[in-house]
């Protein structure tokens, strides 16, 4: 028996990450964190059976095992082939973000000036190529003003305000959705700005406003994140995350 009476915040986050892939079809899902991995695999076991997922290394998984577990494989996806997929557009990545602004510009590179940062992180990694080529979403486990800031120090992932309407090379940019520990957001606000789609149960509009440096469109009107079904909860708890790694990303 799976109880739907004690659904945790992390479980709402997991189904919100799964819903990122609704309608995605036969493309490669590239979730970069535990929560978004649970989400992508949940989507594959429910509404999106055609999704391709990898082991995070070079193997495409035929099975949909628990996060971190091994499973049967169906193919090969070394790094250089990943870049081919990126350029082809048949991919939806869910990245993390050290900073993200109201247009969806994202930073995971460094804090401070470009040539002499105050703190060095990874560098821009694949974020410029991901965002300019195919659907990109973000998972942020701690929604606060430091992350959701007025201006990112380094534009790694490209936001909506960077699109040059005169240059058709930007036509595939699709910064799609942001899932956080507080709610689900997209960039459907005025001029492609950050907009609340739903807040998780127990989260107030004030809490989101207090933890975001910029104005959040439609915040007062946002609904409540949908409840997971009993089947989704069973898959999360028994199949994909029996060790409860999800609670390490979002406190219960």
């Amino acid at each position: 028996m799976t109880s739907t009476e004690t659904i945790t915040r992390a479980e709402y986050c997991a189904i919100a990450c799964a819903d990122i892939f609704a309608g995605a079809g036969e493309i490669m899902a590239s979730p970069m964190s535990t929560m978004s991995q649970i989400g992508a695999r949940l989507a594959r076991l429910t509404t999106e059976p055609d999704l391709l997922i990898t082991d995070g290394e070079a193997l495409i998984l035929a099975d949909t095992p628990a996060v971190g577990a091994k499973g049967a494989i169906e193919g090969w996806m070394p790094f250089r082939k990943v870049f081919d997929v990126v350029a082809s557009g048949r991919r939806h990545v869910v990245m993390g973000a050290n900073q993200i602004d109201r247009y969806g510009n994202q930073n995971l590179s460094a804090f401070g000036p470009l040539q002499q940062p105050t703190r060095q992180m990874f560098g821009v990694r694949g974020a410029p190529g991901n965002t300019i080529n195919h659907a990109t979403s973000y998972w942020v486990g701690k929604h606060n003003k430091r992350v959701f800031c007025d201006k990112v120090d380094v534009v790694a992932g490209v936001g909506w305000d960077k699109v040059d309407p005169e240059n058709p090379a930007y036509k595939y940019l699709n910064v799609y959705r942001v899932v956080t520990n507080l709610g689900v957001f997209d960039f459907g606000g005025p001029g492609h700005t950050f907009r609340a789609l739903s807040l998780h149960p127990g989260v107030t509009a004030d809490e989101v406003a207090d933890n975001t440096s910029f104005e959040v469109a439609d915040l007062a009107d946002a609904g409540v994140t949908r409840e997971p079904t009993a089947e989704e909860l069973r898959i999360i708890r028994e199949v994909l995350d029996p060790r409860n790694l999800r609670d390490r990303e979002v406190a219960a």
Partner: protein
Amino acid sequence: MRDKRITLDDAVGQLRSGMTIGLGGWGSRRKPMAFVRAILRSDVKDLTVVTYGGPDLGLLCSAGKVKKAYYGFVSLDSAPFYDPWFSKARTEGAIVAREMDEGMVKCGLEAAAARLPFLPIRAGLGSDVQNFWGDELQTVTSPYPDASGKHETLIAMPALNLDVAFVHLNIGDAHGNAGYQGVDPYFDDLYCLAAEKRFVSVEKIVETEQLVKEVPLQQLILNRMMVDGVVEAPNGAHFTLAGESYGRDEKFQRHYAEAAKTPESWQAFVDRFLSGSEDDYQAAVEKFHADSEKTGEQA
């Protein structure tokens, strides 16, 4: 067929200060670390380094060998993830950073391999990559209109031409044919195609006849046209992983990151591991593990 076997130090002896070098592998995976250690033993400096960066770039920064770096990221691939020496070099403004999208590194190596001045790529548009590079990175407008009659303007990724490439593979012969054993070739063949001089170290050198039997043909990513010198360097990717040969030495990598925290602990690390030959290094690593087993530390 020529015997191209050479020592680590003789290969690195062909480097000159100010050269541009490419380092194969990815992050903390199958990095040409024995060559990197040989560079640390040499007098060369002011290097420009092209890399999918990990502790290779970090160690070169630790010794002040790097003037400029072309990279998409620098990562240890496991906790603590951020390389301490690369971070220090960056926050002190000690190196010129040409940061770019990961796909742009591949694109630039492909341009160099094909002897083209550049290749167009979408990645980089709209991001701060262009600001990292200043005038060194330009755009190019397609001569071909799209359906609406507009022309796409794309990043013109310049060729990443290398003076010298260093890569580490699992198995090769004395002539420069070599293959990887593991799940990912990374970009090692491209590094060799993009370079004037190409050096490969391998876990083991075998007869050609054995090489082609031991490795699936698709994994023989280097042929002898692509290689000028071959070194047998067992454990030569240490402490990064090397496919089927060995995993990452996580304990040692953590020790590397920990040692970088103070000048005193780093000097002790250098004295213990980096002050002698490659053989001395490998012996010191063995002793490091034997000692920590004795004291009952977790592996």
